[in-house]
């Protein structure tokens, strides 16, 4: 109940018309980006907390993370994760570049009907 209330209400609009300082599309993307930056910071701090707790418990030694060298298999997995991550977030660049190579592309709403044979 409270979780669903929070989903719905936490980001509620305050009474009063919102000012825009940039082009609305730019401001919208910047707002999304700044929230992503916030969540990245939160994830980074969580990982830092984990490292410090592991060190305090003697599970992780100082410099162990910085000197960590993945074996070939792990290295490939990690680098592939990087590639996948970049491909995901830069999807629109890929799609715009592909679109530039298509000569006469039609929009869905402008797609002409097929002529019915014999009509």
């Amino acid at each position, binding site marked *: *109940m*409270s*979780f669903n*209330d*929070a989903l719905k*209400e*936490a*980001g*509620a*609009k*305050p*009474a*009063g018309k*919102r*000012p*825009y*300082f*940039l082009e609305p599309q730019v*401001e919208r993307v*910047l*707002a999304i980006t*700044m*929230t992503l*930056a*916030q969540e990245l*910071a*939160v994830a980074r*701090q*969580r990982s830092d*907390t984990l490292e410090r707790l592991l060190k305090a418990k003697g599970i992780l030694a100082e410099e162990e993370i910085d000197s960590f060298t993945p074996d070939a298999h792990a290295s490939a997995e990690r680098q592939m994760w990087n590639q996948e991550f970049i491909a995901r977030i830069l999807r629109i660049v890929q799609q715009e570049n592909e679109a530039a190579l298509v000569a006469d592309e039609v929009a869905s709403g402008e797609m002409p009907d097929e002529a019915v044979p014999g009509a």
Partner: protein
Amino acid sequence: MADPKRPNSPTADYDGPPDYRVIGRHGVFPQTSHDEIERINFLAQMNRHLAARVVPGVKAAYKARVAPAFAAAHGRPIGNRHEARKAMLGDQAFCTWSALRRMTMEQRQQAGRWTAIRQREGLNARASALTHGDDRLTLNPDLAIPRYVSAVDHHCMPGSYHTEYAPGDVTNGANYDHAGFVTTGGLLGKYSDGGGHAVVQWVKKNVPDFAPRRILEFGGTVGHSSLPLAQAFPEAELTIVDLGAPMLRYGLARAKSLGVNNVRFVQASAEDLTGLFEDGSFDWVQTTMFLHELSTRALRNIFGESRRLLRPGGIVLHVEQPQYAPDMPLFEQAMRDWDAFYNNEPFWSRMHEMDLDAEMVRAGFERDRIIHGGVYGVVDRELFPDAAQDDTEDYGRKAAWHVIGAVA
């Protein structure tokens, strides 16, 4: 580099807000997960970054681009703060800073509301357990919320101070209390009460023989700035008047769990307290960072009520951000006006240009008994940056205030 004059930096090289985990908790304070705390830490650092690293660029752009362009276009320099602000709206430095500052406030509200709403039932139950049947909480469900509060949610806080989401609700009080750290960066101290301690320090220094028995605070919300008054004068009874039931419920629960018992919370409009309090029934009437949220009509009514309620020789004190004086640079005035236009503080601009002395006289105070002073937030210097020594200027947010008041 750290400033060697500051004894309060957690480590020698660190200069900024403390970790949120040093905040003072009490019986109705919301639980905060690791990630919720880090969200608040991030947002406090965003405000710090904007004030310390971005505002200087806005100022430089004003000097290098905005002011010369205005002068070239109009054949005269910028004439007032409204012209300065409108001219800056055409400059990317001001617009980028503004967009980021607005977003940071919106993110702060979302972060704080998430924490409060997800545990709403539990918070309401804790508040109820602490306040049920206590005659120090007087609510008036029929109280009409005036338009100067309801039309625009102050500082982008959805539902403002008054909206209730369930019977016995304290959600908006919990949001207001626990995440205000984002804006102050700790400058108001462990219990966000540095403003109240500053007022007490000022009174003890400037009116050393003052021994109030009945103190009244208008617009005291959850009691951040009020409880220090009750703590400093344990023989006195402090009454907090506010429009918002969620603030008052939360406020009494908070006060009791902090061991402050000589305080009562009353839901009423400070514009008209006839029927609740008799003429001359208070020794001290206080407001702290409250006047800017009032329409002119409300401000005049409230000044009038303060005059009516004070006994002869009683004192009224209003603590506020500094007024716009002719010697304040137009850039600074325009930056201070930002909250009025872009952070839902609709009366901020007008209030800060009012002749408050004239308003005090209009309310019936004698001009030669008007008080002027200045105070800084008082905080625990072991943990927090100290406002008096912090030269980062976050126009309108810094814990450095003016006092205007009068002896009745």
